């Protein structure tokens, strides 16, 4: 199911949560809504689900206007941050709920429901646990139950609110792969909200980055990482050292660094350099120098923390071989292979 969001606006009291958001989600796509807390990403998800209603704009499922249709009538699968399982029901009853509450003709027979529940529990790899109660499950297992319950109604779209937020790192990693597998197996259009960029970049086909109730950029993970559309995206996605300064005649200058800034208008600007895009350079070609404070080898790279003479913290990362014999306290001359400069 294609989903179109058209200039949606939503305020809570006087606080604008969504500021004219437009977004197209292709059929079968896996989209991440990424943003800091308060960026409106959860509100957008809830508007798509029909749990909140916008003041302005439209929500279309296919070519049907669903803007003011209730969640119950939209046939969405929603997975809540805290799972929202029904505690007094067994796992199987939880999964069957969406089918059990159907009325008359639409309600499948008992055996059909049982078969569907079994199939779903197998899909989320909880085949044996149908008779347990939610309280008897681990966090990761509850998450799977919530997912199976949402999928039971054959939703036209699957919506997940911070699906891995409450889980520990190991479980999170494996469930991430699991969600991708389930998405690929069912082909259902899926939108999930996260504040964890690693999660968004690893899992999603496309990432929409939200800030202050508006979408800053939409694109494939490598696009938003390598070609950020603005200062916010650049600073939020991936690691970056931030410099504040000014552009004059195609050159960016701050207290600490000087960079080429072709095509950026004169005036105040911010520049970003990712840690791995710093390279060691001879003193006469360097664009900044730092005093190293901490050197931490991490797998194939060596991470260096340091500070410029003006006191700004700098993070850099070098390949093991090129790092040579770095010493804490030593002065390093760096130049940037690549920098992002935006007018402020």
């Amino acid at each position: 199911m294609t989903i179109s969001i058209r200039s949606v606006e939503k305020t809570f009291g006087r606080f604008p949560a969504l500021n004219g958001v437009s977004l197209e989600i292709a059929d079968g796509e896996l989209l991440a809504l990424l943003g800091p807390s308060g960026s409106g990403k959860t509100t957008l998800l809830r508007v798509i689900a029909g749990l909140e209603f916008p003041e302005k704009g439209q929500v279309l499922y296919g070519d049907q206007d669903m803007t003011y249709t209730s969640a119950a009538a939209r046939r969405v699968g929603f997975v809540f941050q805290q799972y929202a399982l029904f505690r007094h029901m067994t796992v199987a009853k939880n999964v069957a709920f969406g089918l059990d509450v159907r009325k008359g003709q639409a309600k499948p027979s008992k055996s059909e429901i049982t078969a569907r529940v079994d199939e779903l529990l197998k899909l989320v790899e909880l085949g044996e646990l149908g008779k347990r109660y939610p309280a008897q499950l681990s966090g990761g297992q509850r998450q799977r139950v919530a997912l199976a319950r949402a999928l039971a109604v054959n939703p036209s779209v699957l919506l997940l609110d911070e699906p891995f937020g409450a889980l520990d790192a190991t479980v999170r990693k494996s469930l991430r792969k699991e969600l991708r597998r389930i998405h690929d197996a069912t082909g259902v259009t899926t939108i999930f909200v996260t504040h964890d960029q690693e999660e968004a970049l690893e899992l999603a086909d496309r990432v929409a980055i939200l800030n202050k109730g508006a979408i800053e950029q939409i694109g494939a993970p490598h696009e938003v990482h390598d070609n950020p559309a603005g200062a916010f995206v650049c600073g939020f996605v991936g690691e970056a050292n931030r410099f504040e300064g000014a552009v004059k005649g195609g050159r960016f200058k701050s207290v600490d660094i000087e960079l080429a800034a072709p095509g950026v208008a004169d005036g105040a600007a911010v520049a970003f350099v990712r840690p791995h895009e710093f390279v060691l350079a001879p003193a006469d070609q360097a664009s900044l120098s730092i005093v190293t404070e901490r050197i931490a080898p991490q797998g194939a790279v060596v991470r260096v923390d340091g500070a410029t003479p003006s006191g700004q913290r700098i993070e850099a990362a070098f390949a093991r071989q090129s790092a040579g014999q770095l010493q804490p306290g030593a002065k390093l001359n760096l130049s940037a292979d690549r920098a992002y400069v935006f007018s402020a």
Partner: protein
Amino acid sequence: MTATVTSEIVAARRPLVRRRSAIPGFAVTMGVTLTILSLIVLIPLAAVALKASEQTFPEFLHAAFNERALTAYRLSFGAALIAAVINGVFGVLTAWALVRYQFPFKSLVNGIIDLPFALPTAVAGIALATLYAPNGWIGALFAPAGIKIAYTPLGVVIALTFIGLPFVVRTLEPVMRDLASDVEEAAASLGASRFDTILRVILPALGPAWLTGIALAFARAVGEYGSVIFIAGNMPYKSEIAPLLITIELEQYDYAGAATIAVVMLAVSFLMLFVINAIQAWARRLGQ
């Protein structure tokens, strides 16, 4: 071959009294608890049973189950049950209103609910009796229709409803507050109607706490004395409650007879406690 030198490690002596826990104070707290329990609860209760056993068995049976006592039990337990059910219904609604909505004077309403806890029961009794008497404000409304409230079993039910209300509300409130709204949203997103959501998701989740509250209100109502005697009229075979019968027999120096009724009430109370605990154990199993 070289001789091996074994250095002897002396095993630590096991203490004579094994420590049960790293938290200190077990012996003191347990001792005080048992002493108080014995002095205040167990010994008096044993004395009641002992007093009742001074009679022969047929005497006991007669004292416990004569016509007058039976009507008194019926009224006490029947009225308490009706009052508990009434409180069950209105308690849910009241708790729902308090947890879910913001309205003016909410904290005042919240305080009024606790009034039956705090008010001396005799005060409540007098107030209710005055209001519901045939010439009272409320009683006068019903008197023309021939409905008498005060000085009848109906009056007893009203007094017992009054004192039981906070139990249901206060047991339900925290559970309702914990019942996250996302559970309701989950039900809605799965296609459940509002009615289905309440019937299949909210009420079952509240069930254990609700039953506990009703059971507590019932247990409290069975033993209630102060507020009832003013409004009940206290006519033998008609509007006389079991606790009052105990008082009456005491006043007639029939200590064994009074103890006998007390023993019956005690047995029922134990049964109630057992039921309440069973409900709570069941609720605990359903999860945090």
